């Protein structure tokens, strides 16, 4: 079973876990249910997909490639919201706005926050997966 995160926005984040506002548990659980194998498969795909997204974003920011950043921002805001990673989705929207303004300071800062957000989300998923075993 999942841990006692009954509401996405209730309760304080425990040490080393994402802030409650980073994750929409209703969204995530609504899709994945309580099947351990589903969550494990999802975790494996999340490890590779989100990390690759983070690396692509870092590279695009370093290259000052606005088009690629715009694509990644679009993907992050849509997909991450779909899977309950609302913190990452919010950062995706921030990136989209910064792309429009070519605001490289915000893009640089947000890129770093995305990397950290990805790790927090993965940490959360790992803890959920182990709780379900």
């Amino acid at each position, binding site marked *: 079973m999942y841990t006692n995160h009954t509401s996405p926005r209730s309760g304080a984040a425990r040490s080393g876990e994402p802030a409650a506002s980073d994750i929409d548990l*209703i*969204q*995530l659980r*609504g*899709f*994945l*249910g309580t*099947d351990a194998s*589903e969550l494990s*498969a*999802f975790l494996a*795909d*999340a490890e*590779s*997909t*989100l990390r690759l997204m983070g690396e692509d974003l870092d590279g695009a920011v370093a290259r000052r490639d606005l088009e690629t950043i715009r694509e990644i921002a*679009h*993907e992050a*805001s*849509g*997909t991450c*919201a*779909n*899977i309950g990673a609302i913190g990452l*989705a919010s950062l995706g929207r921030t990136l989209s706005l910064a792309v429009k303004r070519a605001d490289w300071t915000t893009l640089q800062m947000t890129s770093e926050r995305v990397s950290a957000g990805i790790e927090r989300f993965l940490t959360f998923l790992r803890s959920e997966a182990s709780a379900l075993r």
Partner: protein
Amino acid sequence: MNILVVDDNRLSLDVYRAAIRRLGDHDVAALTAPVEALAHAGAHNVDLLIVDYRMPGIDGLNFVIRFRALPGKDVVPIMMLTQERDRHVLHDVLALGVNQFMNKPADPVEFATRVGNLLELRRSRVALADQAESLANAVQRATAELETRERGALALLGRIGEYHDDASGLHQLRIGKYCALIARAMGCDERYAGDIELAASLHDIGKIAVPDAILLKRGQLGERERSVMQSHARIGGSMLSAYASPLMEMAARIAATHHERYDGTGYPAQLAGTSIPVEGRICAIADVFDAITSPRPYKAASSYAAGLKAIEEGAGTQFDPRIARVFLGCADTVLSIARALRDGAETAEPAPAA
């Protein structure tokens, strides 16, 4: 049910697949590459398509267009997911026949409900199609049975019509075979050839109304007798036209017009040229050839060569010249039929030289 999910993002596919699996024992093909997904759709049954709007290579709109063009995919329910909020995108998607449109992030409960509804829609459509197919099969079987009965009844009528002067029924068989041979040589399909073979066997059904004293008379008929004899065409056409079916209507046309002449001097209506139904023009040739080469109460059989010569000489006056050429072009087969179905040993004469 077989569900195809296409989204270039693996994580979205994962959550959609997990939600669908909880709806029942469905086979879910979750693919990130649109081209691969189209190949899958072309090779597999798909009961529901769930597709992302924004994908690299082929976007959702083009994907749907290509998917719909695949055999059997024109009525498969489709749900499209997108982050786009543009009303024009929504309208374009709906115009393509997409059944459901969901914005991302997709609410899991709404997603599951919509998928469930679309699967139910699919089940209903499949059940309806199965029912329609079953009904169509039943109708086809019943129609085939009716056709068989109708053909049997026609064949019997033909025998009855000929019984006075041809108890063997071979004359009607030969006429049918000649007509079918001509029809095939003219390029008509097998269905038509089969129909004319049977319908032509009724060409003289009106002779039922001709008294035996005239029908079996040895020697020349008087003017009044000839008039009575000629009435068999009109009577036969009238008798057969009382029964409405394509086969019987063809038989009626043949009975009514097989004594018309191409130059308009035949009977009963003095029709000319192509105003004579083509079946009548075909049967006229078959009937005259058979009359010449078969014995009658008032004459002996003439040679096959004489029969063919009569057709050749009558082309353009008594007979449609085009159909006469076709008949003469099939002379070898004509003679094979004549020999195989001859009335008796004394009837057959040596085949004419080519």
